[in-house]
């Protein structure tokens, strides 16, 4: 084995480190603003949150520096072992961890508590990079993609079992990594459809149409399915007669049904639509067999599966989800305009941010966040403090720091010579992006309230160290890139 001596100091990407340090510093000041008491501004005492966070940051810097000395070769060789060890740790945590607010995700190690889920991200990224790096991995091959997905679905399941659904959702970010590596975009398309159908179905409540209650959401989704079916069959076959048949039976039948329902006998148009989709799908399958064009079957399968999905969504939403989860989703979709109930927290957070105005109230001058009316003000809702105390300028500055970090990391990932390095790099990018998207989105009332921290910013040792390890491994891999490509 060739042993290379890498000049870490010379080849490391200092720009990334600079940006991350800037984010950490901004985060620390925000934690001061969120948790300190004006009467006792004891920022450096270990007993206070800012004091503790200072210690976590120093530890993180030391940890990150030490991690830089472990070679890429090590990660490449031991990726699976690290991965399996972390999986075991996650599994053990379920049984060992104490129940805190319903979740079993914290391991008590003497004076410190750690959340293994935060460290599993880096292990999963390593394992995925290693798996995709195999010479026979083919991103177009369904079996390979399923196996690659299994790499991150397993830790997801374990984390859901710890009752940390929010942290588990982060692992969906790996889908984007696989997309970069060549996984068909249709998976992302299907995911997009799934979310769109879900939102439409839940968001539009039944209206009265004629004398019948009319499920507007279901009708919309079914109509979209019919249109997509027509569009897809046109793209695949370019066969005008087939396309018009599907369009005519499907959409035409539905319109006639609507007219009949309105003027002659009221009946459930959505049921007719389901029947029409089944008929057109059957016709497509018939044509597929007749024309020896097996790809048409995919279109039929898409249509029928979408209908099945739609009805299972209805069931899952009303029967499986907990009432508080239902309410959260409803509030996000604007269905429950209820600032006094579940939307109260988000509304408080909006008041805090909004009251910051252009320039903010100044460091430690924020009142909304200090009054403890913003929940989790130094962890998940930390961005409120930035908004209130630093205003629009400060908030945009923080967002730009994240933007430059992410773009820089994409650049670094692209310059890797090995698939291993690139996949790992994109894993870092996608995980950070997911955290940023959800965390700031929820504070701004755009995405659902899912309790995940803002990377390098929120209070807490586990998440800070988890992200530090995730990133420093990548920086080390980047040091060892061979620039000739």
């Amino acid at each position, binding site marked *: 084995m060739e042993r290379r001596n890498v000049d870490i100091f010379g080849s490391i990407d200092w720009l990334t480190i600079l940006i991350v340090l800037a984010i950490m510093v901004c985060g620390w000041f925000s934690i001061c603003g969120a948790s300190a008491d*004006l009467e006792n501004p004891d920022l450096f005492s270990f007993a206070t949150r800012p004091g503790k966070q200072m210690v976590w940051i120093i530890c993180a810097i030391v940890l990150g520096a030490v991690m830089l000395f472990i070679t890429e070769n090590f990660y490449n060789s031991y990726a699976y072992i690290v991965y399996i060890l972390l999986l075991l740790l996650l599994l053990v945590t379920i049984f060992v961890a104490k129940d805190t607010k319903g979740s079993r995700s914290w391991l008590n190690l003497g004076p410190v508590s750690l959340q293994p889920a935060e460290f599993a991200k880096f292990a999963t990224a390593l394992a995925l990079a290693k798996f995709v790096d195999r010479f026979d991995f083919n991103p177009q091959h369904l079996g390979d993609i399923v196996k690659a997905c299994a790499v991150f679905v397993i830790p997801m399941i374990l984390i859901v079992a710890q009752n940390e659904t929010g942290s588990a959702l982060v692992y969906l970010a790996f889908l984007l990594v696989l997309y*970069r590596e060549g996984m068909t975009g249709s998976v992302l398309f299907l995911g997009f459809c799934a979310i769109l159908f879900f939102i439409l179905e839940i968001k539009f409540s039944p209206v009265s149409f004629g004398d019948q209650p009319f499920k507007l959401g279901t009708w919309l989704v079914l109509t979209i399915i019919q249109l997509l079916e027509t569009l897809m069959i046109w793209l695949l076959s370019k066969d005008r007669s087939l396309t018009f048949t599907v369009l005519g039976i499907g959409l035409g039948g539905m319109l006639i049904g609507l007219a009949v329902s309105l003027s002659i006998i009221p009946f459930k148009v959505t049921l007719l639509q389901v029947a029409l989709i089944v008929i057109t799908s059957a016709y497509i399958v018939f044509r597929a067999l007749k024309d020896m064009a097996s790809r048409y079957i995919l279109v039929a399968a898409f249509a029928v599966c979408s209908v099945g999905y739609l009805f299972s969504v209805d069931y899952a939403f009303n029967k499986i989800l907990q009432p508080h989860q239902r309410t959260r989703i409803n509030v996000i979709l604007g269905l429950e305009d209820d600032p*006094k109930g579940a939307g109260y927290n988000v*509304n408080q957070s909006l008041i805090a941010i*909004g009251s910051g*105005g252009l320039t903010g109230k100044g460091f430690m*001058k924020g009142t909304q966040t200090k009054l403890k009316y913003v929940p989790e003000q130094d962890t998940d809702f930390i961005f409120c403090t930035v908004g209130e105390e630093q205003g629009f300028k400060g908030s*945009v500055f923080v*967002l730009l720091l994240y*933007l430059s970090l992410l773009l820089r990391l994409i650049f670094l990932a692209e310059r890797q010579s090995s698939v291993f390095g690139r996949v790992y790099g994109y894993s870092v990018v996608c995980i950070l992006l997911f955290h940023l998207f959800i965390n700031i989105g929820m504070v701004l009332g755009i995405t659902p309230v899912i309790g995940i921290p803002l990377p390098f910013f929120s209070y807490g040792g586990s998440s800070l160290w988890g992200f530090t390890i995730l990133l420093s491994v990548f920086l080390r891999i980047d040091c060892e890139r061979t620039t000739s490509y």
Partner: protein
Amino acid sequence: MKNHRFDNRKYVIGILVMTVVLVYVIRLFQIQILDTRYRNSADNNALYYRTVYPTRGVIYDRNGNMIVSNQPSFDVMVVMRNVKNLDTLAFCRSLDITPDFFESRMADIRNVRKNPGYSAYTEQVFLAQLSVSEISDFRENLYRFSGFNITQRQQRKYSYEAAAHLLGDLGEVSRSEIESDGWYTQGDVIGKQGVEKYYESSLRGEKGTEILLKDAYGRIQGSYYNGEYDKEAVPGRNLTLGLDIELQMLGEKLMQNKIGSIVAIEPKTGEILCMVSAPSFNPSELSGRHRGEHYQELSSRADKPLLNRPIQGTYPPGSTFKTSQALTFLQEDIIDTQTRYPCTGGFSFRGLRVGCHNHSSPLALNFAIATSCNGYFCWGYYYMIGAAKYGTPQKALTVWKDYMVDMGFGYTLGVDLPGEARGMIPNSDYYDRHYNRSWNGLTTISNAIGQGEVTLTPLQIANLGATIANRGYYITPHVVRSVEGQDIPDSAFIRHDVNVDRENYEIVVKGMRQSVIDGTCRAANNSDYLVCGKTGTAQNRGADHSVFMGFAPMDDPKIAIAVYVENGGFGAVYGVPIGALMMEQYITGGLSEASRKKVEDYSNRKIDYGEEER
């Protein structure tokens, strides 16, 4: 080996990142720059959050009488950050407190150890639960005390001076209670005992928040957005109890100057009709500002008035327990109605003697229950523990114990009150340990007559009465009949069928009827309805306890009752007459002239307990 086929996708991801950031910047611009309503409140401290306390649920008795309601009380609140230039002396004078108290109280509020939710920006309780008259001076001078404010709250108002133990009381939350339930902050009240504690989550309601606008001097200018963002308080749920307040008051009157319990249950539903614990106290003593002093005083008394004896006191049940023995022996075919045992002034066998009083001998079950014959039940127990079909005394006692547990003894019944005791039913292990495995029916003979190791709570004795009245089943006894707008889970009021045949219960019922006709319970006889009863005279270190267990009417039981008077002597002395008066009150809805006289008589009788700790 690098595949460049998908390199364009880096742009897709890059654009995705930029889109997310762009959307968020636009959103920030909208809420921070465009939307003026947030900026209007951008002045420091413009918003003032006031907690709105919900009305606590009120409590009704079974006939719709309101027994617990609310009355206004006032808390003096303080926002530390706004306390400026305070004239401490004038302040203390207006509240009638000493400057020392003021200093220590302010220090306590600031102390995060004692007051974990402390923030200099939010209201903290300075003094809680003042009455209208106590607050009036302060209210007039309030404008002089910057940073201080008055919050109106409520405290409990009791319409009857009764049922203190059962209703329980409210007190200020302790630090551990705040830590275990984030709903509470310092100065809040929480149910400490009884129904108030057990049904705390239903009674308390939901707190609200009022958002007010303040000017630079901290003066309230009005509500923020016309209250659009306020959170309304949700009143607590009202409770309806199974309790009959008239019956409860009669019971407490009868138990004056005595120590003991009365528990009455409606057999069909398991609802507790009354639960008297003597000595008692006025429930309003444990309400409001002086709760602490009264609590101290009550808890230091030798006769322990704070103890809820019906569920926390465990006593030997005495002869009331013989009914459970009769049922067990009948079901196990140890005896039948024709079996006769001798009793010559008691049970004597191999040198062991359990005394009894004068009656004919030998006698059958019916008459044995009526005369409360010790000999009969000792023989029955002796034959059961020695019966060949079980093999060993250990196995026989296990069968016996299982019957006792099945009837609701030895474990808590699951009543909806905190602190229920389980009593004691000994098992084979217990005797194996104490007698080194060599014991038999004779060694443990006192179990047969409800003495020795056996102890029950008065509630368990009343529940035995309810089970016999129902001829073989009981519903978990409970205080609260319904919670407004909320279903009590079915699991709370379960029907429990005892594994003894109905005809055996009928035999015992006849014996208990016989006891009222010409046995130990004659004083309970009533011409209007048929009473069934069983006395008990429980031996203990001092004078015997006087016990009665009964139910009426015989064929359509409306009430089952247990009376336990500590050191009251024979069952017939206190237990029977008190039980008879209670049943009359409940069944006829009032008392006859003669009975009213008896009530005066019994309520004035005093038992001397001395100064000993009880």
